[in-house]
């Protein structure tokens, strides 16, 4: 043991009832998880071996997926378990601190803001919505036959056809954008707050189809049924006919909603 560092998973209310709302048994590397209470909030932390998970380890291994994946998943699983019974605000990785005092000092000035946010996300869960498309049918490909015969006639025809193909492509794109926006709005309408993230690159998503929409919605539990009905409806009626596939992930702890969005509630904005 080369000493330990404090790893912070997330923030809960200080009055968390640990009899009913149990802490997960273990976190990163199978280490125990404990509660570090402050004034109005408490931090869910674990003590990790400094050699395995400390500052030098992060510097050495952060870009090594074999090291990073279990750390990321261990962090996430603790938050996921907490979110199942209580409200929690996730902390970003790498959330390591020298000791309890260092962490509480860094957190002290944020305490009120975090409590306010905890109350905001209370009773909500985050759902991820991603839309994937097959390769867009390229309307730019000229129809053969007659077009080919005229292809040789003049440069002017050629340019004209190029122009037509380009405008068809623009139209196809614009129409796909309208579909994505319509789908997004149908879901945002039911959500308390919504965030549009950049689509993940294929290198990250590991999929062959491009991701066209990458969003997250904070949905009240009693609105989830309606949220899924909307998702199902736009998926079948709007996206699928255009060859687009919607996938839902979740429930997630409210990773995307730890700070207020510019506009809340968004449902009001959409009207």
């Amino acid at each position, binding site marked *: 043991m080369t000493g330990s560092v404090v790893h912070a998973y997330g*923030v809960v209310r200080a009055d968390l009832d640990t009899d009913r709302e149990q802490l997960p048994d273990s976190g990163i590397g199978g280490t125990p998880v404990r509660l570090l209470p402050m004034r109005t909030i408490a931090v869910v932390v674990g003590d990790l071996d400094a050699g395995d998970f400390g500052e030098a380890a992060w510097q050495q291994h952060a870009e090594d997926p074999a090291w990073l994946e279990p750390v990321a998943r261990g962090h996430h699983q603790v938050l996921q378990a907490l979110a199942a019974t209580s409200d929690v605000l996730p902390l970003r990785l790498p959330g390591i601190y020298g000791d309890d005092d260092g962490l509480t000092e860094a957190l002290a000035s944020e305490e009120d803001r975090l409590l306010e946010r905890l109350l905001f996300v209370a009773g909500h869960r985050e759902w991820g919505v991603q839309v994937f498309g097959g390769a867009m049918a390229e309307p730019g490909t000229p129809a053969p036959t007659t077009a080919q015969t005229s292809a040789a006639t003049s440069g002017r025809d050629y340019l004209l056809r190029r122009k037509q193909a380009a405008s068809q492509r623009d139209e196809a794109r614009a129409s796909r954008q309208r579909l994505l926006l319509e789908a997004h709005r149908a879901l945002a309408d039911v959500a308390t707050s919504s965030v549009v993230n950049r689509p993940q690159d294929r290198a990250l998503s590991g999929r062959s189809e491009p991701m066209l929409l990458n969003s997250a919605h904070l949905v009240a539990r009693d609105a989830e049924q309606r949220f899924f009905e909307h998702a199902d409806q736009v998926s079948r009626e709007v996206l699928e006919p255009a060859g687009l596939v919607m996938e839902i992930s979740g429930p997630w702890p409210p990773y995307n909603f730890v700070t207020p969005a510019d506009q809340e509630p968004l449902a009001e904005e959409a009207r």
Partner: protein
Amino acid sequence: MTQSPEGPVARTTQQGPVFVGNRAPRADSLADVLERVLDKGIVIVGDIQVRLLDIELLTIKLRLMIASVDRAREMGINWWEGDPFVTNLEEGEGRDGDHELQRRVEALEQRLTDRPAEEQHDRAEPDRDR
């Protein structure tokens, strides 16, 4: 694909399962987990975070991998740009976001290069991109 008894209607219980277009929600993919744990969530800056500049670099690189805006435009998915409703959701990371990220990558890499030699020696890698 199996049709659920009541047809393709979304439903959920408190813990799921949820079906949308007859698909259950997928398992948490590593990409989704990494996007969230490295790029979302609260940042509480302590001493160690200040020293872990290259970890910020990692998260910025990850964000750059979350499709550059130019590539998104190529794919015809610039729909957030012209729409004030969606542009608001972008939290100011629209058109110029990549330039800002690139600038931060460069600034951070410069700071890493400038760090005192004793902090560098244990992580010096000859093939590291600069």
